């Protein structure tokens, strides 16, 4: 139970908040000051209809903005380090991860039973339960509920599911105003940009980027990029919209079958405002968010914010079990490809994901390329294994945006074998002919070589010799994506096989 406390620090950060001489870094607060320098914000991947997203191209532009790239990398690595600090404070951490994984796998293999149990209990509590097969049906259902109440404005808290459903675009098309109430999500909405991270949506933006967006949209002083000023201005601009809204919407982090309730975890209090100020509360939740009982909830709440932000818990963990007096509550359970994913032998465990973002914070590719470079709802390692289930062609290049170092798997609180699934997706996409020629040709050649030991050894020898002597333009050309921002490994003087033959060759038993 004894949490290690960070060493007391001097009050040397004028922007920091101190308590008992300790600099606070709960919520998504950085453990040390990170000051960016002004620079034009690099934008994300270019959407080209159904054609494959060129993640590497967008990543290259992100890295070409060194001040953004540096801030982004440091900020996310700091979250990773805060996560480690929390992990070391919990002796049973690995046991909790194993429990979380086992609970999720059990629930997913009995998903139909638990969903029916939830539905019955929720209805008994007075919640209206709806089922949506896909994004379009979700949007129609929510529109229908709003229309029944004559609602023209909706305040909502952040939800990746509604991003998946392109919900705001749909609502705009039917004349309903949607107001995001999370600061980061609101910044992204006002900038007409998708969230770049599932937990910290505007993490790729610097304070001057935000100042520019707010100056144009909520009328802040364009020359003032003080973070406290920007956040306070957004709060003041949001409050009247919250008070005037006709309806509120949240997502759901967990759904508890035995109580017929759901849980929302936030830091800003915006989900509780969205749910508790208007009379009508709609919660859109993916069917995989369900867990059997309250005792299981404890495991996940202990893991979620520690994994996500390195904070012991989110500021608010809110449990909804029924409408309040005079209010109305709706839950929309959304499939949108999840039930189909359940049948994919190599990929079904990706449904265990609790959307903490730890895999993104630790991923060297994600940290250096920015979430918007993936051009998909889900970015980073978890995105690489979820996005192709939505569109194998459009997201065919994403599973290659990984070094397969396995760090994502190591930090995942529900023990998804993320890097193995990334590798499995590469194989799957090659099988489905969704891999670009250069990658495929290289992999095919490699596959043939690897299947013939003698040819492999000959090729390795030749390559080692060639790498040492070939001119740079032959080795580092457009077909070698690996060598684009990296040096090829130094050719070795003696291969392992040669060494083995020379030293142990005669001693085989």
């Amino acid at each position, binding site marked *: *139970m*004894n*949490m290690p406390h960070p060493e007391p620090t001097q009050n040397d950060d004028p922007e920091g908040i101190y*308590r*008992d001489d300790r600099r606070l870094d*709960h*919520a*998504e*607060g*950085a453990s040390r000051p990170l000051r*960016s320098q002004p620079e034009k914000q690099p934008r994300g991947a270019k959407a080209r209809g159904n054609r494959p997203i060129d993640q590497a191209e967008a990543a290259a532009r992100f890295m070409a903005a060194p001040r953004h790239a540096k*801030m982004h990398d440091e*900020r996310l690595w700091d979250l990773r380090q805060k996560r480690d600090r929390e992990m070391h404070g919990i002796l049973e951490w690995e046991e909790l991860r194993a*429990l979380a994984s*086992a*609970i999720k*796998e*059990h629930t997913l293999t009995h998903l*139909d039973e638990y969903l029916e149990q939830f539905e019955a209990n929720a209805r008994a*509590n007075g919640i209206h339960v709806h089922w*949506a097969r896909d994004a379009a049906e979700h949007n129609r259902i929510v529109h229908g509920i709003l229309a029944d109440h004559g609602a023209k404005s909706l305040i909502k808290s952040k939800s990746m599911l509604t991003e998946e459903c392109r919900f705001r675009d749909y609502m705009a098309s039917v004349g309903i105003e949607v107001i995001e*109430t999370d*600061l*980061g999500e609101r*910044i992204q909405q006002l900038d007409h940009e998708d969230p770049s991270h599932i937990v910290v*949506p*505007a993490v790729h*933006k610097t304070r001057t980027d935000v100042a520019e967006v707010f100056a144009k949209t909520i009328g802040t002083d364009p020359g003032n990029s003080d*973070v406290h000023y920007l956040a*306070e201005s957004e*709060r003041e601009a*949001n*409050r009247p919209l919250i008070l005037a809204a006709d309806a509120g919407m949240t997502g759901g982090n967990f759904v508890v079958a035995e*109580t017929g309730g759901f849980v929302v975890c936030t*830091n*800003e*209090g915006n989900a*509780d*405002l969205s749910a*508790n*100020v208007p009379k009508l509360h709609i919660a859109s939740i993916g*069917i995989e968010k369900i867990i059997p009982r*309250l*005792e299981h909830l*404890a*495991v996940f709440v*202990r893991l979620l914010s520690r994994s996500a932000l390195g*904070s012991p*818990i*989110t*500021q*608010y*963990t809110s*449990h909804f079990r*029924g*409408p*309040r007096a005079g209010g109305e509550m709706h839950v929309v359970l959304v*499939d949108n490809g999840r039930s*189909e994913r359940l049948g994919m032998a190599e990929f*079904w465990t990706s449904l265990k994901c609790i959307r903490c973002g730890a895999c993104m914070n630790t991923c060297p590719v994600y940290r250096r390329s920015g979430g918007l470079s993936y051009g998909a709802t889900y970015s980073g390692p978890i995105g690489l294994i979820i996005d192709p289930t939505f569109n194998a062609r459009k997201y065919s290049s994403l599973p290659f945006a990984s070094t397969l170092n396995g760090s994502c798997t190591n930090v995942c609180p529900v023990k998804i074998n993320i890097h193995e699934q990334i590798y499995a997706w590469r194989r799957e996409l090659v099988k489905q002919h969704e891999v670009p020629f250069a990658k495929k040709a290289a992999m095919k050649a490699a596959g043939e070589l690897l299947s013939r030991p003698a040819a492999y050894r000959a090729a390795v020898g030749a390559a080692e010799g060639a790498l040492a002597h070939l001119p740079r333009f032959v080795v580092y050309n457009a077909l070698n994506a690996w060598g684009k921002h990296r040096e090829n490994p130094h050719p070795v003087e003696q291969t392992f096989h040669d060494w083995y033959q020379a030293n142990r060759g005669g001693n085989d038993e």
Partner: protein
Amino acid sequence: MSSRDTILASIRTNLPRVDRPLPAVPLFDDRPPASLLAAFKDSLHLMGGEFLDSPASGDALAPVREKIAKARVVCSTVTEISGNRDIAAIRAAQELADVDYAIVRASFAVAETGSVLLSDADLQVNAVAYLAQHLIVLLDPADIVVNLHHAYRRAEFRNAHYAAFHSGPSATADIEGVLIHGAQGVRSLTVLPLPRSA
């Protein structure tokens, strides 16, 4: 076929045919802190909350009275101290938009995370805990559990339609990791230890 039946049928078709038993969850309470109150106070401070030490003698609520002395609008849902906005007369949540201080009592607290649980019964109007600028929470020191495993055995999660753990004030660091108290909800959360009167 309804969407409900379509989804359930699709799930049944695709269910992985593997045996995954449901594990038992331990309470992880074999190393409790020496003092639940001290552990709670420490955790609360790390989450940005403020803990008021009640005075050794005299008016136990003196620190609260001091805090609200200059406030224009105070809304109290507790019997120990009264405000000037009657929560019982509130018809719509929006009527609480101008509250400076809300004073409520927590159902219980969690030492591990510094959280206080506020249920719909504690709040009377849920929005008061979010629309107010500042929140003061009375907590009976006897109502502290060691960790979240113990917390989720409490009846509130089976009875209340709404119950929320508050762990410090509303906060954000969405811009460059700079921590801000008072994101969209309360700017401060203060806990005063005070046994229940009855």
